């Protein structure tokens, strides 16, 4: 089991992504082992969202390879990618909720798609239970019948998390889950990420602008009894399994633990270490 845990879930190998007028990722290599949490910092336009999309195979790299669950996805066609993508939950920066569908239908969508793919071996009653369960996880069970446009930005973000998590994926990608939200809602959302990590054992990649998000992930754990976050004990491994990355103009300029980030003397990297105690 210890061996399996260190297997990489997501691996970039010298990935370069180009758009007509910019090079969005330059020779990026990293590997995320199972059970690890990656915190990704970087200035606006540094390629964080492109990295997330490349990891999903939504954007094709110019050169290099992307491995998901040890499978090289670089040359795969859209159809061949679907089974792998089904194992990943993703929260997009812009939300990506379907505005023509209700919250219930939105959260149901990934389930329905997987059922279709697996030739309908799940019953319908089960479906609603799982949708409700996912929405209860983000405390939005009462919005079932509403449309995304009727919810606040923070609520939409939480529905996005519910939709990403409804299939219980082993890998979660969050693109700026707390951006543009008030500190209270932002912390609620980050608490959900901690809760997902600690109750479902998901590997997470979290793109964020806020240092305290990373601090929260690295030093707190979810207490299933009280339903709240509490400081993680030393030796619980949470701190060690949280790795920080900093992107700058498409390159990976820093990769290391929280201590290493704090010790960094690089002018650009230092910009991302912030006040710890702000919670």
């Amino acid at each position, binding site marked *: 089991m210890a061996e399996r845990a260190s297997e990489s879930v997501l691996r970039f190998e010298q990935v370069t992504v180009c758009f007509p007028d910019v090079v969005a990722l330059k020779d990026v290599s990293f590997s995320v082992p199972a059970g690890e949490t990656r915190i990704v910092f970087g200035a606006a336009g540094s390629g964080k969202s492109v990295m997330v*999309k490349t990891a*999903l195979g*939504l954007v094709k790299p110019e050169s290099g390879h992307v491995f998901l669950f040890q499978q090289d996805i670089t040359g795969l066609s*859209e*159809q061949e990618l*679907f089974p792998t*993508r*089904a194992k*990943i939950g*993703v929260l*997009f*920066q*812009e*939300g*990506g*909720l*379907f*505005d023509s569908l209700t919250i219930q239908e939105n959260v149901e*969508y*990934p389930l329905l*798609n*997987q059922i*279709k*793919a697996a030739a309908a071996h799940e019953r319908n009653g089960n479906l609603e239970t799982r949708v409700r369960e996912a929405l209860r996880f983000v405390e939005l069970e009462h919005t079932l019948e509403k449309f995304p446009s009727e919810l606040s930005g923070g609520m939409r973000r939480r529905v996005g998390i519910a*939709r990403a998590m409804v299939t219980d994926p082993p890998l979660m990608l969050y693109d700026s889950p707390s951006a543009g939200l008030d500190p209270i809602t932002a912390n609620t959302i980050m608490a959900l990420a901690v809760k997902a990590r600690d109750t479902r054992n998901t590997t997470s990649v979290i793109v964020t602008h806020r240092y305290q998000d990373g601090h929260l992930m690295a030093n707190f754990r979810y207490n299933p009894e009280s339903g709240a976050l509490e400081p993680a004990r030393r030796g619980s491994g949470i701190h060690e399994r949280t790795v920080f990355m900093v992107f700058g103009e498409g390159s990976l300029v820093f990769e290391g633990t929280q201590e290493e980030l704090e010790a960094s003397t690089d002018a650009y990297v230092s910009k991302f270490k912030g006040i710890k105690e702000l919670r």
Partner: protein
Amino acid sequence: MLDLLKTPVLALQDFCVLCGRALRNIVRRPHYFDDIFLQMDIIGFGSLPIVILTGFFSGAVIGLQMTRALQTYGATGQIGPIVAVTLVRELGPVLSSLLIAGRNASGMASEIGSMKVTEQIDAMRALGTDPIQKLITPRVIATTVTLPMLTIIADFVGLVGGFIVAYYLLNLTAGQYWTPAYQILEWNDIAQGLLKPFVFALVISLVGCFYGIRTTGGTQGVGRATTQAVVVASVWIFILNLFITRIFVNV
């Protein structure tokens, strides 16, 4: 010079790839019948009032305009055939297609474009749905099925418009108008009258969806995509109309 050509050539290449995939998906599973019927309702039924209005007034106006020319030859009895031929061969298909281009190519571009900029298309792909299959193919099918039907309706209503002019202004009887109008139409006319809307429907839906799915640059980009879709679709309608007409008219 080469750089100037690069963008349009690349765009054309992308367009051809999209066409290929959209059309190939027609025979592939999964089929999204709900989406096809929803689009048919929006494009077909939704456009009915405007198509009927336009058809009626164009028919009436051709009747009126032709009256003067025909009176100089004392041939006002020929009004029926003239209205029938112009409508079935040209005005019915072209006018309905332009209307649908204005109404639905823009709708498709803006709808798909907004989905693109709000990352709904990415989400769809991430959740295992092919956006071409789910969004574009239903629109292509719905447009190609409904546009020929709308054209037939526009042709018929236009003939009624012409009849009203003939009946009230030229004092023709119903028989004097409808019989020659019906007799003049040949298979050739009907064939091009139906081939045109079919081809234009492909152009409208594919161009509308193409500009939608290529949208970049936020809400502003959606506006740009919408305008471009309507302009490009309309221009292609005129160009292709000439070529199709050339096939059917032997000089």
